[in-house]
């Protein structure tokens, strides 16, 4: 286990990274800033995803559905009800959580493993169909543009402003998720994955653990959806199809299944890499496919496991001993 000093170092590191990131806009242009903003969104999506498929061990593919629900919720609330976008972020999270609740109701009915995968896939595609065919609300195929809006006198089309907002939301949600994972709840989530029957024998309400995991995953990804809506400025049904699933998978796996640190690493790396692959259009599917296959065979626990070997400060423990 990490020593008290290592724990302090870890805490320092955790806050130093976002603190340093505050200076990042000095080094970026509109394009690189946009990519970085996209990374922050991917971090949240991957985080929510890894919680369910990694920690809880449930094969639920409803991630794109939560993401879409969040994005549409944010777009609809700001475009149709005139709410300030920043207010729609938690609301989108709540609606994403509602999606999580629906997905968990399948898991709690005993629909698990591949069945859960299939039914959640179907759920995601039904949502996409619903966006397409609810034109008055969602704009149908034309999508829904977010209204122009300013905060602190700066237009929300400004990538630097968006960066600071995205960063704040991401740091908050990552920290909250870490708190969660390093509590009795986080242990219970893992316990359910390892042995659901034995978990119940320890006075842990397993159904509630599954329910809350899905809800939190939906909340995080729903918030990410709201960020995405503003990131692109225009929400289309096509952004939430099955095609986007493989990228999410790759991020979860490359980083390390069930690891918060891994979610961050995987999301950052695999959002950046396709930009370097821009010179070779059409290679992305091949590339992601090969990466996932290679990681599965050669490094099933992802990059996080390498870091763990490097230094104990990267070991993620499911308890918290404050120094």
């Amino acid at each position: 286990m990490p020593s008290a000093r290592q724990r302090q170092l870890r805490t320092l590191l955790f806050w130093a990274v976002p603190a340093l990131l505050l200076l990042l806009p000095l080094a970026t242009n509109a394009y690189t800033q946009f990519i970085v903003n996209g990374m922050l969104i991917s971090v949240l999506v991957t985080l929510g995803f890894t919680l369910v498929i990694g920690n809880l061990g449930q094969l639920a593919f409803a991630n794109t559905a939560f993401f879409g629900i969040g994005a549409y919720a944010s777009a609809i609330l700001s475009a149709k009800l005139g709410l300030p976008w920043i207010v729609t972020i938690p609301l989108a999270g709540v609606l994403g959580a509602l999606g999580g609740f629906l997905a968990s109701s399948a898991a709690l009915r005993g629909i698990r493993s591949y069945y859960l995968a299939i039914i959640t896939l179907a759920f995601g595609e039904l949502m996409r169909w619903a966006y397409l065919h609810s034109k008055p609300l969602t704009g149908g195929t034309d999508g829904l543009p977010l209204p122009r809006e300013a905060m602190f006198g700066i237009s929300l089309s400004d990538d630097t402003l968006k960066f600071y907002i995205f960063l704040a939301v991401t740091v908050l949600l990552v920290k909250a998720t870490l708190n969660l994972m390093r509590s009795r709840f986080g242990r219970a989530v893992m316990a359910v994955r390892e042995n659901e029957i034995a978990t119940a024998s320890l006075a842990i309400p397993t159904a509630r653990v599954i329910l809350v995991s899905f809800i939190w995953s939906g909340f995080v990804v729903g918030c990410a959806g709201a960020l995405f809506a503003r990131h692109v400025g225009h929400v289309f049904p096509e952004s939430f199809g099955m095609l986007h699933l493989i990228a999410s998978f790759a991020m979860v796996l490359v980083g390390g299944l069930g690891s918060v640190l891994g979610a961050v690493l995987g999301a950052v790396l695999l959002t950046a890499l396709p930009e370097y692959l821009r010179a070779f259009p059409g290679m992305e599917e091949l590339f992601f496919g090969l990466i996932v296959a290679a990681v599965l065979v050669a490094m099933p626990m992802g990059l996080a496991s390498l870091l763990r070997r490097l230094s104990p400060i990267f070991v993620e423990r499911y308890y918290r001993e404050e120094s």
Partner: protein
Amino acid sequence: MLMQLTLGGFAQGAIYALIALSLTVVYRSTTVVNFGHGDFVMAGAFLSYVLVVLAGIAFLPAAALAMIAMFVLGVLFSKGLIRPIRGGPHIGLALMCISAGYVLRGIARMVWGREVLPMPAVFDMEPIFLGDLVITGDAVFIIGTVLVLLILFFGVLALTDLGKMVQAVYQSPRGARLIGLNVERFNDFSWGIGAALGALGGILVAPVSLLHPDLGASFLIKGFAAMTLGGFGSLGGAVLGGILLGLAEQYAGAYLDSALIEITAYVVIVLVLFIRPQGLFGRKAVVKV
């Protein structure tokens, strides 16, 4: 109109049945659901295209060659990529299948991404008009081929020694291992058969449709829906589920709204899993909590 829809439903359903059957063959022996199967179907269609159009081989031998090639690919996939992670979590296996599918799709896209390819019509027979009912060459060809194949498949399974062995493995892989059967090799073989049968689905679709790298995605979902409807793991159920799904799509499209065709499969999946998770014939599809 009902008769016509029924015929159309059977022709579509025959393809779904084939795909669901091929998924089930793999699932029954290896307990892996191939989430990349749609792309195997696509690969079959593209291979037959390459052989027919580019290499100038006649359709039937080309189809046979494409199936053999896909059989080999299935075996190699099982040996090279599934075996190393067998026994690991389902998530890993599902992801491996998905990524294999993406690789196939990526290859197809690299080579043909910018063209939508036509396949020459195979059964260019004049349609037969029976009163209001039109019977087309395509429909006859698809239904006929699938029917022959199903008879062959279930015949082998029920009547031959090989079939009995296969059924024995389905009953108890451990028992099969005890009597000296090489289960690993049997699994490779199942992957090969699954890939070849799925490829045949693609090959049959190719002449009536057009080829593009995303061809497989919708078939995968149809296959899942058919499997779920028939009962996960039931070979006969997969076939019946496929046919019923084909019919349901046609009826829903014609009598309700054509926008429903696209989501019939999804609705079937959700309803069946919530109301009768074991499907029509399957063992219970739920894990005991």
